[in-house]
């Protein structure tokens, strides 16, 4: 146990291959560096996806960890022919986020944590006024995205915030490209309506979602 807990230093060798399949094979063979390379390659995108979907840094970190634990335990489940490893990880994370949401059903934990943690989205502006303005706008956009229904939010998170193509998003969500496209259009319309209306009044709805009333 002592040996396991004493993680001296984590460095990724430069000669690690970039190909995901090779990295996975090395990881299955017990190569730590291969696992670390995969983790460092995909962790930021996965974490941001979970953050946009779940709305909380705590949830995002937990889900990111669970997703990679799943990859460690069952690496053979990934089929390279069906898509990239990132899409596979997005699929796992998506299910984990929604499962966690169903289990917890506590909107305060999920959404107020964003307000309590402005450092989640660091503001980098030239002066304080621009910081505040930028922060306010950002908060408004974040709230609007989190107020979207689940199917629209995940499409926005995948296609716009993670910049995936419609085909890749369809692979993750498990539906057709046309469905993704229509959801995307609908999500943008709802989002624009919410943003144009400007003033939102939060009321916590029963369950874990938020209701915004103008």
């Amino acid at each position, binding site marked *: 146990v002592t040996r396991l807990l004493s*993680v001296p230093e984590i460095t990724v060798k430069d000669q690690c291959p970039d190909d995901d399949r090779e990295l996975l094979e090395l990881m299955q063979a017990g190569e730590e560096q291969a696992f670390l390379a995969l983790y460092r390659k995909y962790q930021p995108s996965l974490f941001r996806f979970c953050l946009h979907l779940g709305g909380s840094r705590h949830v995002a970190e937990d889900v*990111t960890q669970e997703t990679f634990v799943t990859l460690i335990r069952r690496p053979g489940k990934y089929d390279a022919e069906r898509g990239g490893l990132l899409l596979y990880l997005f699929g796992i994370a998506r299910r984990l986020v929604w499962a966690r949401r169903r289990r917890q059903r506590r909107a305060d934990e999920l959404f107020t944590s964003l307000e309590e943690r402005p450092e989640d989205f660091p503001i980098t502006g030239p002066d304080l006024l621009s910081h505040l303005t930028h922060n306010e706008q950002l908060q408004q956009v974040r709230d609007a995205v989190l107020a979207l229904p689940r199917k629209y939010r995940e499409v926005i998170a995948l296609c*716009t*915030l993670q910049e995936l*193509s419609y085909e890749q998003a369809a692979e993750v969500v498990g539906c057709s490209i046309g469905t993704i*496209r229509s959801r*995307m259009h609908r999500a943008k319309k709802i*989002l*624009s309506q919410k943003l144009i209306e400007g003033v939102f009044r939060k009321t916590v709805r029963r369950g874990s979602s938020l209701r915004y009333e103008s």
Partner: protein
Amino acid sequence: MRCRECERVLLDGERCTGGSEGTLYRAHAHLANCPRCRNTFGGVAVANAALELLRDASKSLEASDEIERDLLITFRERKELLLRGGQQRWHFSRWAVAAALVIVAGVVGYIGMHVKFVHPMSPTLSSASVSSPSNAKHPILHRLAKKKDRPMRLHTTPSKTAIIAKSVNVPHENKDVSEAIRPEPKREAVASSSAPPVPENEGGTILRVTVPASSLQMIGLPVLPETANRRVTADITLDPYGVVQRVDLVQPRPIRK
């Protein structure tokens, strides 16, 4: 640019324009000049700008280093577990064997409780002692004796415990069988005065006979004259040389209504 093309550019963004700034610029110019598009898709342009803002703001976000450390520990634990793969398989097979044993024991127990194999000619049955408490009134023996009305020869070694017959209640679910093995009534044993005592662990024979009471006088039993004509059932114990050692009188069964 037409309104439909403007809609596509605004909704699909870079996917439609292919990253071309000129197409996006023309779409925005059309949006500014076309009141219909401005009413319909003005909000979409706002949404695109807002999402772009959010995307840029969250670009630098990453999970904490503790996650990486925890995952690395998990990875090492998993690696060690895989190295001990043989033990793991053994654990699995041991559980499988244990489960199989439990199933087999359950099946055997069920069969033992609910199924009774009886064969009239089985050696176990033929060697059963009539006066033994456990199978003194076995259904097959009893029926054979009743049907043929002749003494049955049982190849058993009579012991003192076997000679002292006891009636034992043996519950049984089958109605016919329970009737047949109903406990035998108490009876009296009369030792033959002329015969030497039966040595232990010696061979012998028990005969169940149904004869007139008068015939018992031939073997030395006192019989009242008024009951001489009645038929009585008795177990006669013979030594290996055919000498009568003991006579057990079996009381007749009470007649059931």
